[in-house]
């Protein structure tokens, strides 16, 4: 099974003469296709959505899915088009998940590098904070912050950006400490490079693959936490919509119109499934040491 997997990533095959599709396990292809589809939908959401996502039409309430072409996924309790709301929700949920993953990766990597560079008490503080973050259930911390500060989209993204930073910090610290003892880091230090240059131009590229794998492992969890918060009515607030938010409001009509909550639920499950399968596969390929 392992022998079937080519030694290069698919991107390297593009644009070459005699281009053939790389032989990957079918589920990796499926995950890759689904993620591409979701990304295209998220980027072009306003162009793709057939109706305005807040457009109500009370005469069209509770249209079941797959019955007419105007509303292929049916309509909700206010006669809004489920497909259009789904498309906009994908955009908002992915925006939050991407924003949060990037913030968390930058924050965690920076703290990890600081810990590796200064050692001593800086390192102890970073490690204690990391232990604290890992020990407390994130949902509880997030709910407390939301209780104290109220809610807004930037706050939500910033808050979600705290999710998982401790994992990048631990990985970055460990790898930077071992990189500092390796030849290339010593060489550029001898050449008189500033610490900033060493960490960003030399060590970072060398540990990037591990960090990227960590991102693919954190990303689906961010989607799940955000959709959980929004589902509880404490994340993204109406009139804005996100996948969890759609499931949360659709729950009230589960008996009469289950499709309102089923379509966003399916998108959440397929997306987290696809990203984590791709992440698992990448981890096996790039860095089997990550747990």
């Amino acid at each position, binding site marked *: 099974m392992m022998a079937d997997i080519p030694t290069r990533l698919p991107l390297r095959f593009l644009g070459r003469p005699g281009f053939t599709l790389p032989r990957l396990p079918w589920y990796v292809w499926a995950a890759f296709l689904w993620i591409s589809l979701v990304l295209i939908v998220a980027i072009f959401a306003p162009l793709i959505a057939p109706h305005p996502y807040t457009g109500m039409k009370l005469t069209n309430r509770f249209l079941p899915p797959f019955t007419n072409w105007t509303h292929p996924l049916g309509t909700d309790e206010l006669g809004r088009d489920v497909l259009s709301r789904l498309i906009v929700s994908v955009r908002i949920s992915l925006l939050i998940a991407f924003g949060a993953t990037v913030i968390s990766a930058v924050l965690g990597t920076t703290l990890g590098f600081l810990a590796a560079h200064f050692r001593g008490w800086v390192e102890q503080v970073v490690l204690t904070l990391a232990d604290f973050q890992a020990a407390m259930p994130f949902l509880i*911390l997030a709910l407390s912050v*939301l209780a*104290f*500060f109220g809610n807004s989209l930037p706050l939500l993204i910033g808050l979600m950006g705290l999710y998982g930073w401790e994992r990048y910090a631990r990985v970055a610290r460990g790898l930077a400490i071992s990189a500092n003892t390796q030849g290339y880091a010593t060489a550029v230090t001898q050449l008189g490079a500033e610490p900033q240059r060493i960490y960003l131009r030399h060590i970072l590229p060398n540990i990037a693959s591990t960090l990227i794998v960590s991102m693919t492992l954190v990303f689906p969890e961010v989607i799940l936490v955000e959709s959980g918060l929004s589902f*509880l*009515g404490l994340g993204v607030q109406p009139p804005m919509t996100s996948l969890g938010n759609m499931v949360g409001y659709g729950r009230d009509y589960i*008996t009469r119109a289950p499709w309102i909550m089923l379509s966003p*639920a399916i998108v959440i499950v397929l997306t987290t499934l696809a990203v984590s399968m791709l992440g*698992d596969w990448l981890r096996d390929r790039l860095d089997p040491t990550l747990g």
Partner: protein
Amino acid sequence: MLRYFAIRLFRAVITIAMVVTFAFVVLRMSGDPAILIMGPEVPPEALEAFRKSWGLDQPIWVQYINYFGAILRGDLGMSMRDNRPALDMVLERIPATLALTIPALALKLAIGVPAGVWAALHQGTGFDRAVMVTAVFGFAIPSFILALVLVLIFAVTLGWLPSGGQGGVEHMILPVITMGIGGAAALARFTRSAMLEVLGRPYIRTASAKGLPWASVVRGHALPNAAIPTVTLIGFLVGSLIAGAVVVESVFSWPGVGRMLVVAVGSRDLAVVQVILLLVAATMVTSNLIVDFLYGVLDPRLRQGARAA
């Protein structure tokens, strides 16, 4: 050994202190408590009097120490909605939460650990693959979606079970299954990898080579070693007995601590949120401590004073 426990105990105290600090900082950052409680239209003299009576006119570090002292005395404030001590309100809800989370934990352990061990011992078989696929799905399906799908099938379509509320045992089945399945999948996956790692170690080969029956190798050498990482995860599960039910209690309208937290956050009842935050931290820290003590029992290397990994 004693030193090892002393360090752990110290870290536990530090973690609790950090949670208290977190609550204090977040509370003070969220705005002037005087305005928050009295409202913005109150005359400045009244605000001043309020600040004086609550010690809010003192330097921030004095306030911080007072805040710490109050928490140590068990004075955790009044619920702004019900005007009762927040601590009492939360403590009343704990039995309802444990009534769901303890059976769910039992379900996770009963399914997850044996499935993981069996999958590792029969690596590559159909059973192993089934466990792995279930584990991947168990991770990707969030509990609120699993809960709603179960409600759709067993309550709405088949009408076998109630869709929510508190009552007899039939009300507990769906919430317990919802929590149990996801946790069991994660536990199985973790146990499997812990077990696989141990099975690849040289001492397993040595034990087999010296002619020990395979069952004895597994029982005497593989299981105790695989238990060490697994106990950590189980400790985390025990620690989340209170916190783990937030979403599920909300879906099934179960009157436990989790639902109370969601309602308190929605209505910004800060005292209640703070009590639950501290309670969750205390449970987590206690269970982590128990895990550390168990390590000492499980891992003879620690008893001889070597440093834990």
